[in-house]
């Protein structure tokens, strides 16, 4: 049971949220310029990594805002939550010794 940090509301139980797959996939500006494979790639193909995953969540039973989460798909550890439009965080996240969710700062 994840404990997810909504960038607007703070830490909340996973049951308040809804995941929506890989983040940072921009809709092509000119779809007609894409061939069938490139368009198919945008619509259906995903990284689905074993390890760090940048993904979208929506605080559906809360503020209803969408945001991005950087999570390890092996440990399910959430390294960071950030607002749409914010740059992708990178590891390691070192700000005052802990990261933005889950792990208490010691």
């Amino acid at each position, binding site marked *: 049971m994840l404990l997810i940090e909504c960038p607007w509301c703070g830490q909340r139980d996973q049951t308040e949220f809804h995941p929506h797959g890989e983040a940072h996939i921009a809709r092509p500006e000119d779809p007609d310029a894409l061939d*069938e494979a490139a368009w198919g790639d945008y619509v259906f193909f995903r990284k689905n990594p074993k390890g760090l995953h940048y993904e979208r969540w*929506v605080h559906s039973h809360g503020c209803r805002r969408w945001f991005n989460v950087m999570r390890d798909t092996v440990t399910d550890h959430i390294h960071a939550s950030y607002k749409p439009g914010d740059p992708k965080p990178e590891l390691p996240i070192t700000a005052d010794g802990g990261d933005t969710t889950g792990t208490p700062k010691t």
Partner: protein
Amino acid sequence: MSQPYRLDTGGRINRAKPLRFWYDNQGYDGFEGDTLASALLANGVFLVGRSFKYHRPRGVYSAGAEEPNALVQLETGAATEPNRRATEVELYGELNAASQNCWPSVKYDLGVVNSWFSRLLPAGFYYKTFMWPASLWTTYEKFIRRAAGLGRSPMEPDPDHYDKTHAHCDVLVVGGGPAGLQAALSAGRTGARVILADDKPEFGGALLSGRDVIGDAPATEWVEATVAELQGMREVTLLPRTTVTGYYDYNFLVANERVSEHLGPRGRGEAPKERLWKIRAKQVVLATGAIERPLVFADNDRPGIMLAGALRSYVNRYAVLPGRRIVVLTNNDSAYLAALDAKDAGAAVEIVDTRTAPAGELVDRARSAGIPVHENSAITGVNYRGGRVRGVEVMQLDSDGRGVRGVGDKLNCDLVAVSGGWTPTVHLFSQAKGKLRYLDDEHCFVPGERAINNRGFEVGACRASWSLETCLREGAEAGAAAALVTGFDRAEPAPSPAAPEPAQGPLRPLWILPTVHPVGRGPRKHFHELHNDSTVGDIELAAREGFVSVEHLKRYTTTGMGTDQGKTSNINALSVMADLQGAAIPAVGTTTFRPPYTPLTFGSIVGHDRRELFLQKRKTAMHPWHEKHGAVFEDVGDWKRPYYFPRAGETMHDAVQRECLAARTGVGMIDASTLGKIDIRGRDALKLLNMVYTNAWDSLKPGRCRYGLMLNEHGMVFDDGVTTCLGENHYHMTTTTGGAARVMNWLEEWLQTEWPHWEVYCTSVTEQWAVTTITGPRARDLLASLADQPLDDDAFPFMSMQEFPVAGIPARVFRISFTGDTAFEINVKARYGLALWEALAEAGKAFDLCPYGTETMHVLRAEKGFIIAGQDTDGTVTPMDLGMDWIVSKKKGDFIGRRSFARTDTAREGRKQLVGLLTEDPAFVLPEGSHVVEPLREKPPMNMLGHVTSSYLSPNAGRSIAMALIRDGFKRKGQTLDVSLMDGSSQRVTVTDPVFLRGEK
């Protein structure tokens, strides 16, 4: 009836409260504070069950959650429960339990024939046989199924109810023994919010079963004082009778509190039977203790053989001495405590110790108490008769402990107490993805590194800290440290009192004791796993056949798969496999510990979310009127919608035919409140509409309405509806009933993640508006009678919206139509919905107004060829497939899904397309879902062209009508085809346009 094995004094039972109870229809007496197991033992009932596979007689083996044998059917009728561990069931008055998995009785069980054929039934025997003839497998299987299983399911609904609660705390302490109590105390004193959970009715853990001393007083006094102090702390919650069953990520734990189970089904009153705690803790202190490890010897499963710690528990805690002559079999010192306590309680005791030269304080004490110690010895056979052990055969071990020598000594006894050391209870730690570490010296797994998301500490016996003083100290330190981490900086460990106890020496690492024939190759069976009847021979067979990985071993032999989840057997199974492979235990590995720690009642998982509260029912403002007027309801999503309004004596068919005619020829009225409604405003609202709909929206003027189709990015229709321009940058969107939430989320997803720079605000207003739609040639007259407003086509044209009062209620009236006739959708604030509906119904009397339901709505729209998204589309249909090319703008630029139209498969000829079907027999209504075939054959398989999506008997068309999605449908118009039906018959159909009534509005 007397309790022949009850001690005269001592124990924590309440002798002032005798309780009558029933086991296998025989009455017995026990006391408050007993478990069913202790009460049965007090009464000399040793044979309490039959084993899973061989139906061997079995007795009480433990005194706790690890019990593999003593499973009973508790209570009868609706209150019955299978597979309850007698060691965990607290005794209450008139408790009624029965043995299970036996027939006709536990003493004379016909299933014992399995035992006679046991040599034919080694691990995995079923994979090797029952294959010939193939047709008989299902017959064999019936017998296998009947022989398997244990207790019986209740056959009536549960008479009890269950509670569920959420809790958040700084520190959760699991286990209320000495370490857990100290942890709770240290954390509690800081003011931290603490929850202490323990599965027993009383806190104290092992201290309640022993005779320890803390400070200068019996440990139980320290327990009482500590619990009293904890009870006085405002932020501390004490949860006795509460088993923490699951440890999930981010310190989320599930605990089951047995609130009133100990009162029995008749003493429960209004109290819930159980309560599920869902706890999110900042820190978790695991003080889960240890489970005694058995020694595995020849015929070690007989009734009258139990764990040494359990014997101690029965003597000290329950004042039951379950044997007069007791043999204690051990490879370590801890069992000497049981021997001493039993001796002290009046039993004749002998010790069989596998160690070559046991020594130390406890051994000395035993010898000086007059207890004979048989050194370097093992039990090699058990004399079992009449429901209990009568004696054992003891032989000298040879030097490596793998064989025996000399002549067997026969010892008379009626109880054997066994100890092979202790196994830390690491289940929760492992569930939480912690890594286990093997301690070579202690011969056990202990917690290693914790998973990153599950922060906390482990203290006491669960990390192989055996001495009481260490447990007390570790608990105190961890409690303080946990509180400190969560922000309570005054934290310091509670003082650790002195707890003197005799030192214990090392054990002999020998758990599988030899007998007169090689283990697994003779009549005497070594059960390493009592619950599922798995023997050492089975493990050897598994190894021989290549099932060497732990998980293969577990699955092939079913070790650890019983209701006890292998609490006493897993470690011995591992050590046998390690031995066979010549490897160390950690190299063999350990199986995954899966939740729950002990079985968790379904009812408790469900809590109150059952029956009326199972899933929400959404009702419109007009629902009371519908109920009063006899509506039959249809579930549409969460909504209850009137399906039809039958009059006295009418069938559904009659009612729908009447409603359809009335709505076409006079005026009909339907509650359309459930349609999804979204208020959209903002500078970029129009841009949004242009992206999510296929048609162009730029020209839509305020007060005008337009129909739109919504596609996903694959180009497939997923919703439709009418959107109205309410004013500048302000729109009112409607969606299908079932699609409302999906569309709302869809808009938000795009707006927030793709176009966050656009200024658009979407608000769901589905529940804010109640909608009554009136339709038919007399709809305008009806509305005119309640509204002072010009309603003719010029003043109020089709596809427009005006605001004016109807029956005095402010309303938005939309002149849009899903029936193809003149229709008005009257939206009022939800709280006026019923008033408006009633006003229309009253005024409608003069117009023969007919309320109708969803089925009539479906027929009326089908008559005009209007689609229902989700019925005539299924996520594989483009607007072109629907023949709706007109709604796809070629000029406006991009929109969601457009690019996908050009893909090879989407752009190809001959896709499935929406057409009408007319049956040759106009009275025959095609079943929805039936398929058009070409060519028609005598019997399947047949080539399917597509399926009927909608099909009705239309009184207005005077015949049956149907819509279908069929391959290359547009080109087939005029063709005659066949529909093959489930009963093997077929119907001839002609392909047409999907419009069955022409003309008007």
